[in-house]
């Protein structure tokens, strides 16, 4: 009888352990990760008031780098930051107030239109909204 009880005890411990080993991953699984959306459709990128005038910032919009510019009048612009020529990352030039690609001197205006140099196409535009001083960019593709 003693032996039976002993085995039952071990069975209980092993059973609990097994249950734990199965339940723990499941519980962890159920906690959603920080960005539970498989596709980024909008992104908060910081405070409008913290963003300097006539400056820019590159943010990661999912897999796409996006350049966000606050022009000297305080208007916000967001454009895909990959140059349409050879996919280099573009930058904002404060002096010329234009978007510029260092690889082959491609130049775009603040709305992303290709002005000079090799880029064949304009940069894709992103919508920018400011809600409660929070800058939010949104993809315009459906």
């Amino acid at each position, binding site marked *: 009888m003693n*032996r*039976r009880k002993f*085995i*039952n005890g*071990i*069975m209980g*411990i*092993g*059973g*609990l*352990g*097994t249950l*734990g*080993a199965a339940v*723990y*991953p499941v519980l962890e699984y159920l906690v959603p990760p920080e960005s539970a959306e498989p596709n980024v459709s909008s992104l908060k990128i910081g405070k409008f008031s913290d963003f300097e005038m006539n400056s820019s910032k590159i943010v*990661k919009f999912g*897999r796409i*780098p996006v350049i966000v510019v606050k022009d000297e009048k305080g208007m916000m612009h967001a454009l895909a930051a*990959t140059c349409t020529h*050879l*996919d*280099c*990352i573009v930058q904002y030039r404060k002096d010329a107030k234009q978007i510029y690609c*260092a*690889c*082959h*001197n491609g130049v775009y205006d603040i709305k992303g239109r*290709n002005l*000079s*140099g*090799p*880029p*064949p196409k304009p940069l894709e535009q992103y919508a920018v909204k400011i809600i409660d001083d929070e800058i939010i960019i949104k993809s315009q593709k459906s």
Partner: protein
Amino acid sequence: MKQKKIFQFIIAACFIIFNTSAAQNFDDLKEDDNCVSCHSDMEIMPEGFLPDNIHMQKGLSCSGCHGGDPATDDMEISMSEDNGFIGVPDRADIPGMCGKCHSNIEFMRTFRPQIQTDQVSQYFTSMHGIKLKEGDENVAECASCHTAHSILPAKDPRSTIYPVNIPETCNKCHGDQELMSNYNIEATQYKEYSKSVHGIALLENKDAGAPACNDCHGNHGAMPPEITSISHVCGTCHVNNMNLFESSDMAKGFSQLDYHACEQCHGYHNIQEPGDFMIGDNEESVCTDCHFEDDEGMQVAVSIKNILTDFVSVYDTAEAKLHTVQVKGMNDLEIEYLLKEARQKLIESRTAIHSFDPAKVKEISKAGVELTQKAIKDADSEMDEYYTRREGFIFASVALLVFGIAIFLRIRLISKDKG
């Protein structure tokens, strides 16, 4: 003074006629304009006539160029010299004929305020214009490129001067071996161009931003780019390369030897997509055209080549690793970003070779190699994680083993009890 006023009056009158007839379509013209009505009835409209060519659109009908009086249907009167009828113009007269309106800014700007009116004067600076003046009737005049009766603005894809159509337009004459032999020039430009990186972009990929003939040779002032200006011609688009080259020692050497800047290595009409094979001491390298085995230039070429090859080989490794990470379903986002930046550095290093200074190339490529190595490191650690997702496995193994053994013993116990 008085003359000028009369002229302005005529222009104003024309403008009214132009404007009212602008609304008319070609069918209306058939009724009102006796040139059009007779010639279309008799089916002797000029070859290639396009009813909605820009002149017709704006209301300039046959008599605008050919003279005569479209108001009367009596041929004797309408096509009389008294009425200014000129019939088929001499080729030599065509620039002047077009220039009557197109060189007059006061008239032309009524159609488009920012329009240019220097085409004719530019034309006479071009080789075409010079030869025409000399009495050569085989050279191109306005209608050769713009056509006579189907003129369309450059933005219209049907136009002979729409960017994608320009090479074909020039090739009409410049591809004619017989005609070109009179001038001692080749007739192979189009063939070469269409296989070039620019030609493929323009003709095959229909990238209207890619340079057509006129982007290097000019439009109305078409001339071969002079040796001194070639780097500026290329440099209008390839600014970085031009700046680097011009401040390099190579530029000085080139100018002493009367070498053509960009063209010397890249060619001209048949410019191919450049690659790392172009530099170094290998056979395809353009450096070997002038430099020999152990001269200083060749050493520079080889050291730049080595910098690029090293960069490319780590970059390729990193890309292969990124691919594995992606296929295995591990987190590839950061690695992808790093490689994007690294790729940019690779492009920049390739541009930097135009300084012909290994130190400059090294400086840029070093940053790129660092980024690439970071990407490799991240990829490796992702793959490590992929293979070591097993910490919990030990615990699970122990628990399952204990449970299993307990059940096994229990089974034995029962069978013993019964046995």
